[in-house]
């Protein structure tokens, strides 16, 4: 039985009968709806649902609450990844005797960690309660785990960076003692930071995937690789920018490895998840991610092909750093867009329900 068939009426059964005539001077709904459709046809309305994806929603409202995180959070994903990657490069440079690259990446790590701390606290609704994060350690909360990972990583990265001032200290007295002790402390702290760094770079992917946001949650197998690759590429970018060509061989190789990891994983996120991949290809998220891809490819190519040119290396490094920032903002925006649109909540869940009831 279809809607409207049960009202006991029979007068209008002849085919061709048409409702929606003007009555009492009011604009009938049929006219209003046709106007609405005409508006839509002109392209100044929302797009129609694709066939087979029609769904119902409560006044088109989102079912989920979109993340309230401001730009601080994607910015932190970028600076946190940069800090992590830089610490890993710094440890490698330290181990293989590349002092200029070590200095640049250690300082980059500290600066990025400082920015991260600012972003994380600034984004809180109650910034003066940031220390409430330290009340508990909770494995089911990636944010709690991240707090403790950063509590380990931050000081280690900081000590490693501070150790770089050693050559500037006087040779005698208390500071002379510090001059001799700091490099050892810096190396130890640097290795500790590098050991924790992969967790710093990847836990943020778990953090956003562990939400009801469709395009983040469904991407959970790939997101850690997007973030890890992007972290390596951006840190290599810093090394290419700031260290002499004689030392940047590993950085250009890592730039390619990181870019490859990121590009492969991003491609899957943007294409292999069916309907919930859509938000990553549309609107602002789509533009950000396309720009990120272009810069990543250009940066990785430049890092290899221009490895004999200081200028090309530096430009490639800058491109990789910029690409990593755009990637984080793109992934962030894509998720927010998927939460704000009820389609990405209802259509996949409805499909799941129909599949499971069909199987019964």
């Amino acid at each position: 039985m279809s809607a409207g068939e049960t009202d006991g009426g029979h007068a209008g059964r002849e085919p061709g009968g048409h409702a929606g005539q003007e009555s009492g001077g009011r604009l009938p709904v049929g006219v209003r709806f046709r106007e609405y459709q005409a508006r839509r046809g002109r392209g100044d309305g929302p797009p129609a649902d694709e066939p087979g994806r029609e769904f119902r929603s409560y006044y088109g409202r989102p079912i989920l609450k979109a993340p309230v995180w401001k730009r601080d959070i994607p910015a932190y994903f970028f600076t946190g990844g940069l800090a992590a990657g830089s610490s890993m490069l710094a440890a490698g440079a330290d181990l293989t005797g590349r002092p200029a690259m070590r200095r640049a990446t250690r300082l980059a790590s500290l600066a990025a960690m400082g920015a991260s701390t600012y972003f994380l606290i600034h984004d809180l609704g109650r910034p003066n309660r940031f220390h409430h994060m330290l009340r508990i350690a909770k494995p089911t909360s990636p944010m709690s785990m991240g707090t403790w990972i950063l509590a380990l990583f931050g000081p280690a990265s900081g000590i490693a960076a501070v150790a770089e001032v050693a050559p500037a200290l006087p040779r005698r007295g208390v500071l002379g003692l510090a001059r001799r002790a700091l490099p050892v402390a810096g190396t130890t702290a640097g290795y500790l930071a590098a050991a924790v760094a992969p967790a710093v770079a990847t836990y943020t992917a778990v953090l956003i995937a562990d939400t009801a946001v469709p395009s983040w949650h469904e991407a959970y197998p790939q997101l850690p690789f997007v973030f890890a690759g992007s972290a390596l590429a951006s840190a290599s970018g810093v090394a290419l920018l700031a260290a002499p060509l004689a030392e940047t061989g590993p950085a250009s190789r890592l730039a390619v490895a990181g870019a490859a990891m990121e590009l492969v994983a991003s491609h899957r996120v943007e294409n292999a998840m069916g309907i919930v991949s859509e938000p990553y290809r549309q609107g602002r998220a789509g533009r950000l991610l396309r720009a990120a891809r272009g810069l990543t490819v250009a940066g990785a190519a430049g890092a290899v092909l221009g490895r004999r040119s200081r200028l090309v290396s530096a430009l490639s490094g800058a491109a990789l750093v910029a690409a990593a920032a755009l990637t984080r903002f793109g992934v962030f925006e894509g998720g927010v867009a998927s939460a704000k649109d009820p389609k990405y909540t209802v259509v996949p869940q409805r499909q799941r329900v129909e599949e499971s009831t069909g199987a019964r």
Partner: protein
Amino acid sequence: MNRLYGPLDPAPDAGYQDPPARMGFFTDTSICIGCKACEVACKEWNGVPGHELTMLGMSFDNTGALTANSWRHVAFVEQPVPAGRQTPAFAGTPTGPTIAPAAAADAVTTTTDTGTEPGLDPGRHPDSAARMAAGPEFLGMPASELPGRQPGREERTDLRWLMMSDVCKHCTHAACLDVCPTGALFRTEFGTVVVQEDICNGCGYCIPACPYGVIDQRKTDGRAWKCTLCYDRIGDGMTPACAQACPTQSIQFGPLDELRERAARRVERLHAAGETTARLYGHDPEDGVGGDGAFFLLLDEPEVYGLPPDPVVTTRDLPDMWKRAGVAALAMAAAVAVAFLGRPA
């Protein structure tokens, strides 16, 4: 560690020894009259801020959604479907088709300042709103063909008015609680989920974690707020404010076991009376969130009321997520090792 998925009794799982019975709400939408006494009583008792009244055009719903400042929300849906066995009010009166779908499509873009973030986001897809208001039988038909425009529909159909008082579901597996990094969200001895306002630091993680879009952030103080199932009242053996105020017992409060039995009987009675669209939502401990502490009797699909059709707690996949992150972390370390040591510089 607590279990992340599947049926269980949440209070003992959270570490309570000999807790009282799990308490909850059964909201029977078939007898809701849309009076919004629940919304008002909740605001009164809990001191929840009000906001400026904006007409949203969503039938009688000018609240719009559950927010940090609305812990009960009465949804209104108008559908051209005869309600029960009433005599159609407009039988034989050729006044044209119902306005409901077009009116619903028009109401999609309205919004109001709820004083919260993200509060009431404007909607999208007027088509999906029109389909909501066209009734259950309309599902799957192209939106361009409204019932009134089809041949043989010259008479105005009767209208049914769906009303549903929505509330926090107090999930068995509550994602908001799982992801809260400060311990502000906690499981009570009654199996409910409550935010401690003196602990919450407004990190915002609970907000996108909730599969129902319940919890929300208050702009004025930066903290997350939601229904407490009147923790202060039920601790003293009282009924939560909304259930106390409900004049039709659409909102029923009690031990969850009893409510589930009562709800199953109610559905049987409605089916026997010919209301075959009645179904329960959130009652099943085998569902994606381990069953809701606050569950519903609905007369149409959940998404029509703004509820997700098949919510799954995000932390079900958390062990897998950590594993993937671990593999990515190892790949990262290996890449660095190879880059530095793999071949001579």
